[in-house]
């Protein structure tokens, strides 16, 4: 009979935590950047003159991206 505390002690929970953190942290920015890019392309498709607003779209990409990077940076803090 294997004691459950032995299993818990054998499993390295840090790896699981890091994996969950990366996975969960990248979902949001992934969706966000996808929405920004998709809406930008839609705007260009409807009105080709909107293509000059690429720089402004990239600003929002950078703002969204920060949260993914925060999740990536946190894996160095978890011990």
């Amino acid at each position, binding site marked *: 009979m294997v004691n459950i505390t032995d299993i818990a002690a054998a499993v390295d929970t840090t790896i699981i935590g890091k994996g969950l953190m990366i996975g969960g942290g990248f979902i949001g920015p992934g969706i966000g950047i996808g929405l920004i890019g998709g809406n930008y392309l839609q705007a260009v498709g409807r009105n080709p003159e909107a293509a000059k607003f690429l*720089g402004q779209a*990239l*600003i929002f990409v*950078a703002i969204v*991206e*920060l949260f993914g*990077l*925060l999740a*990536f*940076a946190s894996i*160095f803090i978890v011990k």
Partner: protein
Amino acid sequence: MNFIKVFASSGPTVYVAPEKVFTLYGWPISNSMIYGWAVILILFFLFIWAGRHVKIHPGKGFIGLIEEGVNFITNLVENSFNNPEVGRKYIPYFVTLFFFILFNNWTELLPVINDAFNYHKVPLLRPFTADLNATFAMGLITMGLVYYASVRESGGLKNYFQHFFVGSPKNPLFLIIGLLEMFTDLTRVISLSLRLYLNVTIGMIVIDVFAYLGHIIAPISALPFYLIEIFICMLQAYIFTILSVMYLAVAVNHSAEHSSPKDEDEYLTEDVVPERIRVESGSVGTAGGA
């Protein structure tokens, strides 16, 4: 199987923070500071040299590229303000900021960083922007300039604080929204500095990881990430600059609108115009009828 075990057991050496190389009169000198000073010196002489060789008709060489960059940021700053005269005063700072961050980011891609040169087992060179202290200092100075300039350009503290509020601060809803706006204003230092630091550091780590995974074919496996990093470094310099320009421009433009409310005559004349047309058309109608 052994092959996979090697990958799992020990990853590439990753440096997240700068390290102290030596002490100068009691001041710790870190490896990122050394690289930062080197970039400052290079930029200083490069731009003096470039400034002496500027022509009326720019060529396609290196100077043309620098001119293009200066022109780009100049237009960006001037177009962000309602009154370009106000923006023109702050162009030198933002152009310097852009090129400083750009060159510091690109030094991340040179093969001299981290383990290339060691001094008493401490890496000698590390990109300046891959250091949270450095980017935080840049964020503090930039936001300090933004606060100072927006208070000065909007004409007094009262006008400056008024731009946070949509309506009268006596309304509790507008008061809460205004206080929230003020709070988000204070988090800008942290978000600016964290964004730059994390992008550069994580770019460095990603290149490290893929060069390690590639083993013998490291140049090929790391190449796509190098190319992406060249673009991202440029993008981050652009974003740091444009965000600080926007913070300044929004504060100045908003307060200018608040402090000089539109004359009511303007609205009145707009209301009068359709009536006049109606009168004229009515008179024309009667004339036609007659």
